């Protein structure tokens, strides 16, 4: 149930400070000249909401790059699950949309305890993107720049105030105790909000149509030389996968200290690596880079819609920013869409 309130900007830090007494607070913080990252807040006034949407995603707070699963020593097992209560403040709609899909991936058929333990203890306050970046293309995917459902709390910056919308129970619980900070929106507030949403939608530079690319792949069949041509530019860094808020592959490994003691951990893995599909007998089925890139795009554009009814992409543009070879989702989908099968 969507519920709208108004919060004066001057009250924001007070509200966050009250919440922080109950849980740890994570928000975008500026690190000198190096840019903005999501991290635990020490000083609430350092929170930097005026930052690009493409700062590293909130995925790592629910599914860290490396996570210890259990520790074994002399016959006793310690299950290491993180259940710290956390509020992640200031993330964008694309991240919230991605997390809604992660929830299904990690919780629908097989419940991943490690993810779920972090997830149920985390609340998100997201903020509507007033100024999307040139790399953003969430608009066409319905994953941003604002959300209509499936969020905890969503803020819209309307100048000196925020429109505060709550959707989940977790979200409204966070407001309940501090109702004295909030007021009812006026009609003019709704109008300002509507104008901001329209102008935000209008300022997207990238119009990427994933559905067209999907149809092209299904009907026209993209030739292998196209993928090999793309593969030449691949640095095999795994950055696209690591940065993607929807990529969930991991490898499980043991770190043995001595016999009978050690730690089992999991670590992000990527289908962009040839060892990812290595099988017994020293066989590397995806030795060519093109094959692996094709797999990634097929997963995002074909298999994801088959499983979840949605694309495996939320249009956050992080692969565009991180890919050293510039063979990211937006570029490749555009190439497929316009029928560029050039093979130089």
């Amino acid at each position, binding site marked *: 149930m969507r519920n709208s309130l108004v919060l004066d900007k001057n009250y924001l830090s007070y509200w966050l400070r009250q919440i922080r007494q109950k849980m740890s607070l*994570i928000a975008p913080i500026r*690190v*000198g*000249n*190096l*840019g*903005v*990252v*999501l*991290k*635990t807040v020490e000083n609430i006034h350092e929170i930097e909401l005026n930052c*690009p949407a*493409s*700062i*590293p995603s909130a995925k*790592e*707070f629910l599914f*860290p*790059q*490396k*996570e*210890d699963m259990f520790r074994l020593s002399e016959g006793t097992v310690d299950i290491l699950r*993180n259940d710290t209560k956390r509020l992640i403040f200031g993330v964008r709609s694309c991240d919230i949309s991605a997390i809604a899909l992660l929830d299904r991936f990690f919780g629908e058929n097989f419940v991943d305890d490690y993810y779920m333990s972090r997830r149920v203890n985390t609340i998100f306050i997201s903020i509507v993107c007033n100024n999307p970046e040139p790399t953003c293309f969430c608009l066409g995917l319905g994953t941003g720049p604002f959300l209509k459902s499936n969020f905890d709390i969503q803020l819209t910056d309307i100048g000196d105030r925020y429109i505060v919308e709550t959707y989940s129970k977790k979200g409204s619980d966070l407001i309940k105790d501090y109702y004295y900070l909030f007021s009812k929106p006026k009609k003019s507030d709704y109008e300002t909000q509507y104008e901001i949403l329209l102008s935000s939608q209008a300022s997207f530079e990238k119009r990427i149509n994933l559905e067209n690319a999907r149809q092209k792949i299904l009907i026209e069949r993209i030739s292998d030389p196209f993928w090999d041509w793309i593969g*030449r*530019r691949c*640095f*095999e*860094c*795994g*950055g696209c996968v*690591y*940065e993607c808020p929807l990529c969930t592959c991991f*490898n499980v*490994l043991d*770190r*043995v*200290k001595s016999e009978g003691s*050690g730690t089992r951990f999991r*670590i*992000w*893995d990527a289908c962009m*690596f*040839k*060892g990812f599909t*290595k099988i017994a007998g*020293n066989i590397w089925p995806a030795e060519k880079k093109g094959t692996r890139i094709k797999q990634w795009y097929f997963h995002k554009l074909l298999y994801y819609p088959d499983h979840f009814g949605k694309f495996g992409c939320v249009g956050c543009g992080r692969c565009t*920013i*991180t*890919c*050293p*070879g*510039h063979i990211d989702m937006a570029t490749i989908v555009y190439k497929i869409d316009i029928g560029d099968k050039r093979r130089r």
Partner: protein
Amino acid sequence: MDKIPTVCPYCGCGCGLYLCVENDNIIGVSPVRNHPVNNSSLCVKGWNCFEFIQHPDRLRYPLIKEGGSFRQASWDEALKLIAARFSRIKESSGSDSIGIVSSAKCTNEENYLMMKFARAVIGTNNIDHCARLCHSSTVGGLAAAFGSGAMTNSINEIAYARLLFVIGSNTTEQHPMIGMHMLDAVDKGAILIVADPRRTQIAEFAHTHLRHRPGTDVALLNSIMNVMIREGLVDIPFVKRRTENFDSFKDTVMKYPPEVAERITGVSAEDIKKVARVYATEKRSMLFYSMGITQHITGVDNVCACANLAMLTAHIGLPMTGLNPLRGQNNVQGACDMGALPDLYSGYQKVADPKLRKKFEMAWRVKLPSTPGLTLIEMFDSALKNDIQAMYIMGENPVISNPDASHAWDALKSLDFLVVQDTFLSDTAELADIVLPAATFAEKDGTFTNTERRVQKIKAAIKPFGESKPDWEIICALSREMVYDLNYRATHEIMEEIALLTPIYRGILHHRLDNNYGLQWPCPDVTHPGTPFLHRMKFAKGLGTFMPVTFVPPAEIPDKKFPFILTTGRTYFHYHTGTMCRRTSTLEREYPECLMEINPRDADSLRIKNMDKVRVSSKRGTIIVSAYVTERTPEGIVFIPFHFKEAAVNLLTNPALDPSAKIPEYKVCAVNIEPVK
């Protein structure tokens, strides 16, 4: 979760990244957005650079060898013992019987302290580090030609160049983030010329790929310059105004017309002419080189030839031009800058210069030795002759990395006393009498200097593992035991001393580097913004000097018994002797075993199939590796990476040295190959 901004510990690119820390555990990495080097990207090593930090193999406490095996010791016991042994050897056989090996993996502050320890505490100039094995020819060659041995231009200029000439560098694999800028330039329409015997990834993007025979770089470059002079492509005003010694250089170069070079190098005369014309006529031409140029017995000559080329066409001293050696280690530039070299103090100030020595004597309040010390390979030779009796090795693994590795092993075995300070029990540490556990880059503060002279701050993200300590603390503690008080409360105090004594670092202080992109030296005062490109208006030494160089064939040429040329190097997924990367699960899985690249035609004639085991032998040793049949490597040449101790290619390599830089010829040696039945 906290995110600590720091710098990648692998190659010389110096990419900015954050270490993600949760409950004193490092749980991930993310790239710094808009960093001038990596611009939001990282290579696979950077993305996985955190996994080895808390590996259970890490050294937890000092070890003392007793009766052939190690036992746990306290810091106090270990340091007292080292101090006593060093003092005794110093008294009985003199300071010069002790050799110190510093590390390009450690910070500037630590290298500075190590060089101060060697000179002020031990009293010897016998200090060197692995730059000897990678870019000593650059330091020597460019000092002679320009007066400063570093990359002249900056990484973020690359994308705007009009022409890139890459010689002897596998850039996309060894300096991936520099390779990224190169691809950007090519996308923007720049011409790319690659000279490399192997068809590397960067060569696939090249407009012209010159596949010259290994070790023939001088002939190739001389003939390119020959064409320039004959066709009037020389920038005469530049040569007249800013250089010297052109005439004798011209006489030498005239002996290398393209037709002669074609016979020596195997590159067609047409290609040579084409490259000469386009390199000279494009306005913004950048020249890059790496180990393919330096690791030869003619390393200095190769570097000089590159310098000549840049001067002849005036592609230097301006943005988007220049001569750009790509340094291999995260802080090899810094270790050289800090004077971890036998003949130089920090900032390339000569030990032999009495005025400069006086300055350091006054600052350190101790008499300093005046004659240059032994270089790295010479130290090992002297150890065998018993002239060097004790060594103190910090963060290096010469048993795997030195040429003719069994020689290095013998040398270390013959020492009276060996101290190794490292993060893991490396193959070298196993030979030590005392092993000291050091902290990794994530557990200490300091600065690294990347290949483009950018001094960047690293920051401790977690507490040191076990009882390990940062190298600078260990050196300070040891010097106190040896009654010379190296006393610093934190690394910024060391940096202040460096700035005081080193003109090129004078304005570089920690508070200017915190949460920032760093500063590029020379930085002469605290308000100076750093220098993105060198030799503007005037070379560091005044006039640039043309150094006439002649072609000398490699020290070992294939013959009947050893018919193949072996060339060595790194692969994308691994790094040097594998101490860090082989403890990183993703990297180890991607490239789990040593592979020898061999051309399909050679493989056919030897009846070798892909992934067959082969025995590779040279005059010095034999190893067994798997063959990887690929067109990347030309006929008659095989390539083996040196990361793997189970197939240590440096058992085969030739320890022949460049006469002045003393760099060994890793890139060429003759081998025989036979299938293992």
